């Protein structure tokens, strides 16, 4: 992975390499260079399989992290590209023309995180949720317990403990 990183860093202004395993590494890529890095990895380095595309919400830092995981089957190694986006008004260029499957991931990200991917097919159709009227549910500031209590009636008599509060009580 090291020699790949030295090759990449001579071409693109990318960040440091985080080696998780000998065959898995993560690297941060600036938003505007993502597409060229992806195309380079796909066409020149043999990372032809997009494993997944997902987002992590770093609420405290006001950022979304998009993770593009690519795999090179013949060399047996994977690389994850991290892209940091500003949290409010998050917009990212679509890669559905590079990997057609990315369109589905982008639909999910728009619905569950509210990240916009202009140009992605059927982006604004409902994917998983139906008639959703709150903030996108995978965002960290969405409280699922509160939503559940407000919307669905619980059967009386059930003892439920909030895991967070219960753990705090246990830890002290």
């Amino acid at each position, binding site marked *: 992975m090291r020699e790949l990183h030295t090759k990449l860093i001579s071409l693109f202004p990318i960040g440091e390499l985080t080696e998780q395993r000998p065959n898995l590494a993560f690297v941060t890529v600036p938003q505007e260079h993502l597409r060229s890095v992806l195309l380079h990895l796909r066409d020149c380095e043999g990372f032809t399989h997009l494993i997944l595309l997902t987002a992590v919400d770093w609420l405290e830092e006001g950022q979304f992290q998009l993770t593009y995981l690519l795999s090179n089957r013949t060399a047996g190694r994977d690389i994850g590209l991290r892209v940091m986006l500003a949290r409010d008004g998050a917009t990212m260029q679509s890669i559905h023309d590079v990997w057609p499957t990315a369109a589905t991931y982008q639909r999910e990200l728009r619905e569950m995180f509210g990240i916009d991917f202009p140009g992605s097919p059927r982006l604004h159709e409902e994917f998983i949720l139906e008639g959703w009227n709150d903030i996108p549910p995978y965002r960290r500031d969405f409280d699922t317990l509160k939503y559940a209590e407000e919307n669905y009636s619980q059967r009386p008599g059930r003892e*439920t403990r909030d895991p967070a509060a219960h753990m705090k009580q246990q830890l002290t």
Partner: protein
Amino acid sequence: MKDELKIRVVKGPDGVEFEVEPLKDYYCEAAPTVMPAAYIKIVEDLFNWARSESIWILGFGTGCGAIEMRPLMTPRFDAYRFGVQWRPTPRQANLFVISGYLSTKTLKRAIRSYEQMQNPKYVIGLGSCTINGGMYWDSYNTIKRLDDYLPVDLYIAGCMPRPEALLAGFQDMKKLIRAGKAEGANLYAENFEWYKANQKRVIHDWDMPDYNW
């Protein structure tokens, strides 16, 4: 609202144009009515006996519980020997097994399927998640109490219940029917407004008629 539900003008094969309003024209909007018992008790008992011996289940796997239906259909557990069988359409079924958690999206389909079933009809809630939310008690997308939305006659607890538990549940269901205590459909008709209000509270994009059969 979806495109196919909007009012549109359709040209028939004979060239005559006419307006179609899918929500009104495709469904009969009449509230359900309470089905009275037969005029004499012995006839009602006969009916109940006959109903209890032919439990036909709607083959709609709404959640994980559907995985134990296949072993029940096959010789190992063989629910057919109790007169229980699976039917593909709501019109032919009289027992709706809600097999597990219902997300609000499935709840909408479950309500429609239930209302399309013919009287007499019964509902079994399968698994802990239909009773009080189970594992998904804090989930934003699943309902916590099935009996708020559909009239449940019997619950089978477990996560997930074994096929033997289901067989025992079917036997209990038979006893209830034979004793004339499985009155879920009548309950639904009596408290129709209450059920509809509950359903509309969780289904935010209600784009179907209030009752369709």
